[in-house]
């Protein structure tokens, strides 16, 4: 029997939605304490995205978090050393009058330093899925995220990508200015740093994914956490003046990934 309401997103559409949601996590912060200052900026750089129908898995691989950190210290020497002025000297010159030297004052400078750390690249690979459960007591549908720890890979500092980013920041642009082979050379070095150095990590991820998929470990090992709740009594037209709201009862709610690589959410409704 067909569902009353079906909403679907293909792989590209789902990727754009997930990327949009996760990119909103990018941000920055800064502050100061006494004479010290600091600033953080972090940005999510999407990696690969795949919808897998076996196990209804949303597979993210090598999503990077670029973190830029800078901190500094500054101190005004005038806080500890008194400013002083050279006394003026004046002489009286006949027919000219009184002539004085200019007033010269010494204002001690502010000293300090600022250190910009190289961009730190962290990497996350994760398999997760959505699961919908009914909380009868609360009269709500609970949407949960399931994360498979077997395929979860978090590299706090991804050496390969960090080295690649450092190369791009410090040498890449200069190397690309070399006529002829400059850009090819820069690309080659960047690729070597980004892939070859990451080969062992990639191989490990590949093996974990293959084992998890072949043994169907995702539904068995996954750890669930609550994402959102939807009331069973759903208001689809708000009250307006003397007109009361129009509600329906959501009697079924489901999420799955089809063999066409589409994330499909479906629901059945009834009169409350």
């Amino acid at each position, binding site marked *: 029997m*067909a*569902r*009353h*309401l*079906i*909403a*679907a*997103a*293909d792989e*590209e*559409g789902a990727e*754009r*939605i997930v990327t*949009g*949601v996760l*990119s*909103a996590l990018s941000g920055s912060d800064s502050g100061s304490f006494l004479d010290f200052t600091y600033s953080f900026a972090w940005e999510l750089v999407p990696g690969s995205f795949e919808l897998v129908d076996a196990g209804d898995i949303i597979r993210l691989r090598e999503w990077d978090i670029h973190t830029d950190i800078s901190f500094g210290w500054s101190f005004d020497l005038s806080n500890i050393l008194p400013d002083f002025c050279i006394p003026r000297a004046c002489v009286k010159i006949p027919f000219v009058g009184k002539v004085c030297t200019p007033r010269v004052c010494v204002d001690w400078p502010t000293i300090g330093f600022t250190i910009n750390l190289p961009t730190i690249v962290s990497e996350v690979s994760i398999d997760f899925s959505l699961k919908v459960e009914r909380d009868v007591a609360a009269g709500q549908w609970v949407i949960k995220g399931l994360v498979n720890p077997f395929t979860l890979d978090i590299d706090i500092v991804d050496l390969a990508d960090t080295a690649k980013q450092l190369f791009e920041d410090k040498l890449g642009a200069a190397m690309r200015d070399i006529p002829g082979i400059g850009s090819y050379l820069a690309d080659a070095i960047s690729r070597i740093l980004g892939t070859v150095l990451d080969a062992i990590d990639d191989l490990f991820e590949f093996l974990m994914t293959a084992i998890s998929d072949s043994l169907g470990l995702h539904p068995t090992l996954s750890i669930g956490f609550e994402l959102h709740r939807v009331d069973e009594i759903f208001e*689809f*037209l708000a009250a307006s003046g*003397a*007109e*009361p*709201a*129009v*509600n*329906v009862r959501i009697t079924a709610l489901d999420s799955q990934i*089809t063999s*066409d690589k*589409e994330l*499909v959410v479906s629901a*059945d*409704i*009834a*009169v*409350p």
Partner: protein
Amino acid sequence: MSLTGTHHAFVGLHEDGLNVAVEAFRAARPWLFSYGHPMLGGGAPPAPTTEIDAITMPSVGVSFPYRIDIPKLTIDCYPEQPNSGLPPELQPLHDDEFDIHADVVLTTLCPGKIQDGKVVKDWTPITAALALWLLGSPGAQAVGGTQKRLRLSSRAVEIVDILPAGLEDTLECFMRVVLDQAVLPRLTFVLDKISTDFFSLVLADGPRVSKDQIIALGDVL
């Protein structure tokens, strides 16, 4: 089979869901399905029957209280449900069409006795049950940019079993013109892209009827 086709997103409302929504409207706002003179239960909400004026006749001092109830209203999207009862005059239901079937009960109070030209006693209720059918289709018209005007159009209306046929045709003509000129033009609204903090969704195809559903396809920006 892919739902989204060449687009990113798909939304489908099945006819069963639409009919549940109709009944949810009836449960919450029953006065949308019942109209009557105060002598026949009409009143201001939350009275279950919307108040309407009586029918007046030229040169007659008496007006006729009446009431219209719609006890049943169902929507059937192409392809037609088996044994739907769609009248032969409207068959076949075309691709991209839906039909609306409404059972209408018309009750009129007939004055049995008129005194002094206006004072009336002994009202006699006369009830007629009619089956109304409407063929319609959803559509969208580009307005500019990402905006589209959503609208409904009607191909035909049918009142079942009114004789003589000429009277039925006359009433149907009247209803069709009222629908085309007064009702449906007001049932439009301009839909722009749907924006959230994370992504935007723009209508790319539809709404249209397909496989017992009204569907729409969109692209994620």
